[in-house]
Every structure is written in structure tokens, then in C-alpha cells.
């Protein structure tokens, strides 16, 4: 079982014996200080619950307007997707694609894939293509930027506050909660635990 007890640090390539940290603790590389493994309490159940909550909040955040802007009796409402389609209509398709990817597509795919993995595992089965899906999730991590978008909303509100009346919508609250739920889901996930369930291709 050398492949489970020996690992190489992903930041400095030091070959080392991976000692399993106590629940809630983490193992660091003694040479460069990189976090090698964080052990989570009740990882599977917590990640599953948080991903499910995340998907519901994500649907609400997308379906309802998150801000309304009122100026001299005229009102505009904004959904998550409105910004993308407006940028596209102004000929900024590159920006539209970037915003669409980082705030809608990537988070949606991440949440869906998490559930695709976790629901069968919860019932003791390994889903098909588990390894490929885990790899995709790993590669998507840098591109989901919901928390940055939330900061963008706050900045926009403060900027416009002097100019007109800003009315927060239902989606804004869903959004605020979603940020914490996504962060908690990412923190509850123990990839090592799931990788151990992957059967070798060869």
C-alpha cells in the first residue's frame, strides 16, 4: 500500500510518509509548509448537505432579481444573467463569456458534479467516471468566482447609492447565504477520502 502512505508534496516534491492527521487537523509538508491533507469530520454527510443547500440557493439566486435600481420613477431590475446578456448586446462578447463562465456555468457545474459524486457514495456505490469527474472538479476550482461577484455587488451598491434608490431583491439574500454555503462545502470536502474509493483503470 505504498501509494497510500507515501506522497510527494505538490509544491516542493519532497517524498514523505503521509501521517493521517486527527479529525479536524491538517498535515503540512515539513520542508515547504504546503498543506498536504486536511482531515474533515463527517466529510461525506456534511459536503452532501451543503452541496444540496448550495444548489437550491444557486437556483434562487439565478431565478430572482438581486437588485433593483430606481431613478425618477423608472425602475430596472437585475438578475444574474441580465448583466451577461447586456454585455453581449453591447458587443462585449468576451467579457460576457468570462462573466457567464465564472459566475454561472462553473458554479452550476461544480455543484451538480458534487451531488453526482456524493449521492451514490452516500448509498455505498461509486458513480461512473468518478475519477474523471473528480479531476474535472479539481481543474474547475480556480474558475468559480461567486464570492468575488458578491463583493462586486456590494461595491456597485455603494457606488450607486448616492445616485438613486437601490432595492435589494430576494436573490441578494440567497446570494449572501450561497457564498458561505459554497465555502463551507469546499472546506468540508476531503478529496483523499474520495480518491481512495476510485478503482484503478488498469
Amino acid at each position, binding site marked *: 500500500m505504498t*501509494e497510500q502512505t507515501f506522497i510527494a508534496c505538490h509544491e516542493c516534491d519532497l517524498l514523505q510518509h503521509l501521517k493521517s492527521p486527527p479529525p479536524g487537523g491538517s498535515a503540512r509538508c515539513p520542508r515547504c509548509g504546503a498543506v498536504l491533507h486536511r482531515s474533515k469530520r463527517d466529510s461525506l454527510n456534511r459536503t452532501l448537505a451543503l452541496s444540496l443547500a448550495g444548489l437550491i440557493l444557486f437556483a434562487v439566486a439565478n431565478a430572482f432579481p438581486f437588485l433593483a435600481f430606481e431613478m425618477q420613477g423608472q425602475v430596472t431590475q437585475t438578475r444574474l444573467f*441580465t448583466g451577461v446578456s447586456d454585455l453581449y448586446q*453591447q458587443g462585449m462578447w468576451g467579457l460576457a463569456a468570462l462573466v457567464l463562465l465564472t459566475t454561472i456555468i462553473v458554479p452550476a457545474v461544480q455543484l451538480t458534479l458534487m451531488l453526482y459524486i456524493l449521492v451514490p457514495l452516500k448509498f455505498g456505490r461509486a458513480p461512473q467516471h468518478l475519477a474523471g469527474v473528480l479531476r474535472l472538479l479539481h481543474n474547475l476550482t480556480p474558475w468559480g468566482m461567486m464570492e468575488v461577484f458578491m463583493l462586486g455587488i456590494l461595491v456597485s451598491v455603494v457606488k450607486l447609492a448616492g445616485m438613486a434608490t437601490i432595492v435589494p431583491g430576494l436573490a441578494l439574500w440567497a446570494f449572501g447565504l450561497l457564498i458561505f454555503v459554497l465555502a463551507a462545502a469546499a472546506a468540508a470536502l476531503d478529496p483523499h477520502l474520495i480518491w481512495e474509493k476510485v478503482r484503478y483503470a488498469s
Partner: protein
Amino acid sequence: MKPWPPSAARQSLISCLSCELLSKAPANLDDHLRMRCPRCGATLHARKPNSLARTWALVIAAFIFYIPANVLPIMTVTSLGKTQSDTIMSGVAYLLLHGMWPLALLIFFASVVVPLLKLVILVYLLISVQLRSRWRPRDRTRLYRITEAVGRWSMVDIYVVTILVALVHLGNLATIRAEVGAVFFGAVVVITIFAALTFDPRLIWDRLEQPHE
């Protein structure tokens, strides 16, 4: 400094960057031979391929785009016939003038300081690796880690423009349009994220394992 055992690569072991499984490297491993991780199917490389050259290319591209991103306007506000274009810096100045200095500071850091700092740090890491520096590898790895984590926050200005464009279109009363500066800025953010991904921090440590001359 206490001598460390040799790295995995020196012992002909390749670590999968996706699932961290160790695999035995074949004796005649060359760049053209694609080896896949037996567990997750990711392509295996002892080190990220062409890491230095690719990171240099991305860093230089980002530096070039950084100029129009800051010089060209990122959005135009049309209100009651008056048109005003804003660059990143004039947006910061506007916030400062209106007493919103915490916000001005936030935007200044996220949009101006972070991308530039990220590029400067990557250039420093690239040069230090190429000069085979042995100086404070642990701190240099930490610098890399910060660069990797902080870059995404630069996107905040792109999102602000998106939200303002979506909210403020009231015809003649007030309309906001996105401008090309925002495109260049978005490109800078995306390119620097790719640059941080292509840089291989293990190169910092490889230089320490080569014997003293």
C-alpha cells in the same frame, strides 16, 4: 540547513497533480511520451512541461495588456446628454473625492496593486529559478502560494462594470456602457491566473538538490 531526502522525481517517482498518486516513471521517459495516471487518467509530468517558458510568455502578455487595461476607459456613463468615460484610476479617484475611501482603497488594491504585484512576484520567481537561487526557498514558495490565491479578487472590477451596465440603462436619463479597457483588464486577470497555474513551484526546490559546485 538540515539535508532533506531526495525529491520524488529524483527517485523516479511522478506525483499526479490531480489525485496525488505516485507512479513509477519509465526509464526512457521523454517529452513526447504521454504517460497517464493509472488512477485518475491525468497526464503525468515529473514537472509541468515547459513551465518557465510558458509562464514567461503569459507574464509578458499580461504586462502588455496591463497598459491598455489601465489607460483605456472601462466604462462610459451617459446621463442627461452628458457623457463621461472612466478608467480604473479615475473610478478610484471618483470614490476618493466622494469620501468613499475604504471602497477606493479596495478597488485600488484589487484592480491596480494585485495584478501588478502578481506579475512582479512571478517575474521574481522565474528569475530566481533561472539563476539557480538557493535563497529562502520556503518563503519563495509562500510567495507563490499567495500569488495563486489572491489573483481571482481582481475580477471584482469586471463584475462591478457588469452590474452597473445591467442596472443603469434608463435611456436618456442614465445609461452605462462597458468599454474596451474592461476587455483588456479581464484578459490580464485571466492570463495571470493561467500564468500562476503554469509555474511549477517544485522548480524552486530542484535547484537546492543539485550538488554544490
